[in-house]
């Protein structure tokens, strides 16, 4: 099902002042897989994500994408190479119409106005017909879930090979969460590779091909979801050590 490495981060480090946010972390996203990056709040997930997507530069380490060294490459260039991200706090273009939001994504590869319209339309149609009534609405006026849909649609309109999502279901209700997870699975089945950040591990158990766990900026565990969930170190990171357990150093 999953093939060779599409994206590989090797030995990434990032320090903010006195905090080592990410310490020597290596991860690999393989072609056609859903890789989830999980960990408690403050584990360094978003920092790692920003390092991979070009929004911040690593202090050390390298990022390889489609066989090329893209360490320090700007997000706009990475997007043109096929790596697109979404944000945890929705970053829609608030006072622009919904269809225009998505068109900006579709414009990345140029093409005729008709081609751009068609790409944008197709991206919004991934959510069925539910967005049709909002096309001429300012994105800021939409509900939280719909803003997130616009953002995902906008990202997909760039026709990526790797979609990186930062907590795509944060703030969504269970039905909306299921819908987004279903969409991610469909996209994967159509050949897209997906990297998801999520702090709630149970959410991604069902759809992930592999899971990487971060804790305190370090790589803690990696593997298929069930194996990771049963890993004592992971349980400890999430739940803390039992009170009567022996302290080990």
């Amino acid at each position, binding site marked *: 099902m999953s093939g060779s490495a599409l994206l590989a981060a090797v030995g990434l480090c990032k320090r903010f002042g006195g905090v080592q946010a990410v310490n020597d972390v290596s991860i690999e996203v393989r072609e056609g897989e859903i890789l989830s990056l999980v960990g408690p709040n403050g584990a360094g997930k978003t920092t790692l994500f920003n390092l991979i*997507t070009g*929004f911040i530069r690593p202090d050390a380490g390298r990022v390889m994408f489609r066989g090329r060294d893209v360490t320090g490459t*700007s*997000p*706009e260039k990475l*997007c*043109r190479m096929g790596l*697109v*991200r*979404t*944000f945890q706090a929705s*970053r*829609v*273009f*608030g*006072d*622009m119409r919904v269809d*225009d*939001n998505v*068109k*900006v*994504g579709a*414009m*990345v590869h140029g093409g005729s*106005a008709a081609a*751009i319209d068609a790409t944008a339309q197709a991206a919004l149609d991934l959510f069925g017909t539910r967005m049709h009534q909002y096309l001429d609405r300012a994105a800021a006026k939409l509900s939280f879930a719909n803003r997130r849909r616009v*953002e995902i649609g*906008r*990202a997909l*309109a*760039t026709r990526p090979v790797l979609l990186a999502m930062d907590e795509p279901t944060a703030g969504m209700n269970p039905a909306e969460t299921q819908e987004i997870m279903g969409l991610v699975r469909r996209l994967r089945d159509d050949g897209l590779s997906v990297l998801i950040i999520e702090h709630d591990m149970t959410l991604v158990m069902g759809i992930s091909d592999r899971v990487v766990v971060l804790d305190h900026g370090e790589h803690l565990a990696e593997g298929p979801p069930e194996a990771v969930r049963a890993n004592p170190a992971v349980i400890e990171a999430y739940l803390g050590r039992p009170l009567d357990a022996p302290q080990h150093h």
Partner: protein
Amino acid sequence: MSRSLRGFAVSAGAFVALLGVGAAFAFGVASPFWLDLVFWVVFWAALAQAWNIVGGYVGQLSLGHTAFFGIGAYTSTLADLHWDLTPWLGSLLGAALAAAVGLVVAVVCLRLRGPFFALATLALAELLLITAIQWRDLTEGAEGLTLPFSPGLGNLMFETKTGFCLYALGLFALVSAVAIAIEHTRIGLLLHAIRNDEDGARSVGVRVLRWKVAAAAVSAGLTALCGTLYAQYLQVIEPSTVFNWEISVQLALLAIIGGRGTWTGAIVGSLFLTPLAIGLRAWLGSSHAGLHLVVYGPVLILSVLFIPEGIMPWVATRWHTARARRQAVTGAHA
């Protein structure tokens, strides 16, 4: 007809109608006082429109556009005096120079977020003011430069104020055409996206820095063309009048009060505020020096307080709301 095409047709129609009205005023008004007013309204509209390209469409506040204005005024005037170069070419030379300066400032400052571009343009204007005063061999210092009055189309100098009004109108048409072109092509969407959220735009491949720098350079070049217009109209330029922070502030105010990032905003801003400023000065300036500013200031404060988004966006929002309500009512009855 598609939405974008219809929007463009409306804009183009309004634009042509506006130019017609302007020309009618230029030809129809006889009184020099009123012609002078027409000239300044169009002049400030053109300047605010030029500022709008970087300050409005990409949302990078500049507080030093007088730097580019002064570069235009001095370049064409010096080229005329020293090389006998026609202002047609002199103004282009000034525009190229200002665009180059704008580009350098933008490349340096627009990588950073925050007030750096505003501060750098402000500092640049002060720097050029001091340079123009001190470099006496070139600029005649604080005394300024005087252009000999030799009317003719080739000289961009006219016997009547009507001629100057048409010159101003032509320049205004050029700057507005650039703004309209931005608004109705995909460039407009990209710039709008940048203004909304730079990180969001970068994430979907928009080359944010490139667009911001291009907008700054184009805006600076068009502003310089207005500097030449000013020099041709008054035929006297001094460092303190063309490198004047009040110009920088006035430009931003007109565009902000009229509505940033809309081509009609700069026009409405100038139509509203230029007659007010000139009228107040004519009415109160001679009897009670400074009193006109006591009235002008609160008008600005109240406008920004009550219509922070600017007049044109405010009107547009109300218009769309009213239309949506009408459609809802019609729909309910159908």
